[in-house]
């Protein structure tokens, strides 16, 4: 095939790798006990939110307000389920993502002017504004939030005994596709321009690419991922409250993103899973000091894995590449 460009070949390879991983995870799901299924579902649906931060990190900015789009996606899905009578899980999840992207879009060009601490704090402020509104809105249950029923899938009811696995499978498929797309996006021209922004913004401008538009697009994409994560979490928990938008929630998403590093998309989910495991186990074994355990865990990771979990395998590849 003479007309096949190397780019198309690499996209195919990424897509196949993504599909393979997705099928492997689905197969693994059959062997998992119920608690592990729920834990994995949470890890995946939180991981996709952090994946959005990783995309932003690749363009040199870190959002401390990912809780805003997380909550927006969750609330949009919850309201659609309770008031519009939509019960199909797929529609709810993608709708949650779209709602978050729509909410984030007007802020994107504005935020794209900021860097470093200022970007982080402004996104944090946005998420806290949403938190303030949600806490005060009696129609949305105030600080207690509200519940939603179990969703349907392609018009079929989900039986109670299959609920854990169905949600897990749904999370694996949707997030697996999104993560593969993110990988393909990361290797595309715009994705690589983002990486260059991280290294040196001014040079990118001189080369004729728009830094602000790249950051704005990444922000909206990150918002979509955050919304999907919020809707997935809502369906897994069956409940939503304003804490989704609180700054400590955003802090944990950043934590997972830093833990993963910005080189590998897969690392985000490994990191997210590790955090969920540490959280559940310290909740179980040190109920009064689980924050202490999380803090120590975080410090150890930052100290000894400065470029994130992903550096464990991407560094080796780079070194191998350098030798060749």
């Amino acid at each position, binding site marked *: 095939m003479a007309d096949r460009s190397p780019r198309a070949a690499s996209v195919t390879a990424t897509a196949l790798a993504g599909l393979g991983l997705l099928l492997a995870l689905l197969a693994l799901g059959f062997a998992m006990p119920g608690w592990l299924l729920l834990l994995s579902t949470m890890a995946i649906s939180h991981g996709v939110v952090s994946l959005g931060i990783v995309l932003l990190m690749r363009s040199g900015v870190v959002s401390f307000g990912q809780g805003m789009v997380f909550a927006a996606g969750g609330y949009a899905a919850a309201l659609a389920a309770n008031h519009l009578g939509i019960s199909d899980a797929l529609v709810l999840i993608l709708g949650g993502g779209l709602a978050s992207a729509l909410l984030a879009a007007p802020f994107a060009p504005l935020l794209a002017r900021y860097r470093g601490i200022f970007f982080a704090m402004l996104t944090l402020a946005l998420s806290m504004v949403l938190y303030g509104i949600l806490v005060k809105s009696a129609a949305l249950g105030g600080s207690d939030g509200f519940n939603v029923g179990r969703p349907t899938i392609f018009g079929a009811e989900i039986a109670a005994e299959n609920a854990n696995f169905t949600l897990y499978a749904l999370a694996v498929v949707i997030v697996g596709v999104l993560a593969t797309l993110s990988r393909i996006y990361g290797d595309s021209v715009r994705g690589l321009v983002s990486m260059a922004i991280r290294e040196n913004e001014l040079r990118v401008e001189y080369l004729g690419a728009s830094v602000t538009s790249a950051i704005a697009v990444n922000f909206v994409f990150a918002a979509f991922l955050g919304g999907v994560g919020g809707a997935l979490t809502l369906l897994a928990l069956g409940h939503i409250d304003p804490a989704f938008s609180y700054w400590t929630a955003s802090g944990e998403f950043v934590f997972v993103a830093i833990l993963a590093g910005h080189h590998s998309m897969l690392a985000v989910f490994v990191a997210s899973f590790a955090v969920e495991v540490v959280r559940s186990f310290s909740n179980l074994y040190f109920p009064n000091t689980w924050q*202490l355990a999380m803090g120590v865990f975080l*410090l150890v990771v930052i100290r000894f894995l*400065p470029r994130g979990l992903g550096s464990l395998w991407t560094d080796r590849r780079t070194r191998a590449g350098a030798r060749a």
Partner: protein
Amino acid sequence: MLLLTIFVDGVVYASWLFIVALGLTLVFGVLKILNIAHGSFYALGAYAAASFVGWFASLGLAPAWSPVAMLLAAVAVAAVVAPLTERGLLRAFHGRDEVLLVLVTYALFLILEDVTKLIWGATPYYVTEPYMLFGTVEFGVMSYVGYDFVLILVAVVCGLLVWWGLNRTRSGKIVLAVIHSEEIASSMGVNVSRIYTFAFMVGVFLAALGGALTAPMLSVQPGLSVGVIIVSFAVVIIGGLVSIEGAAIGALIVGFARALAVHTWPDAELFSIYVAMAAVLVFRPQGLFQRMQARKI
């Protein structure tokens, strides 16, 4: 009348915020760390004040001594916690990316949150005696608690002292030199690591003092640290993270925004602060008093 109330409430709230934000600004200026754990130091100050006031009372000292107890509490927190965290922890991460350092202090915040609970438990403490110590002040038909005005006074004194210390003393000028360029300062023979510990100690003292002064106004219980830190972030971001004036004006803007919301539209209290911050940043992307930065090509 409403305007006067909003004004007084705004200034009182701003004074309290200013004391905390001043410490945050100083630590950011010298160590380049936006310290989330600053809120934990604030909470430690409040708890320590509760313990010290109780301890003074059990020694049989008159309630008039309680301000001394509160001051001692803040000094104790700064003397114990600051060197431990700065030398033992933050030094290991020195020079890393600003956002990463925020996360390091977030970890520290999580740890201190539980440590506070381990030491003082989860039941609230009440230290109300000092609050009534200064009587009330009458403005026409309105009366205000004297303690609030003492708070304003303390804030002004803190601001002036830090300003004087930085600009009019030898060691202050050395600190300014380190803020400007750590490398050049150290090549001129300044012991930079000692300056770091010193500045961090002053920063922690100011946070703990803010906490100690607040202790009589509310019940001291877990969760204190979370509320204060995000608000003081808003203050220093408005101010541009560099100067005492910036922190003062940031505190006043946030104080008035909150007081206005509390008295005219109470539901908006929580986010009036962030709306004020966003409004300032839209027009001044680096805060009101921005520092000039060379663009790297």
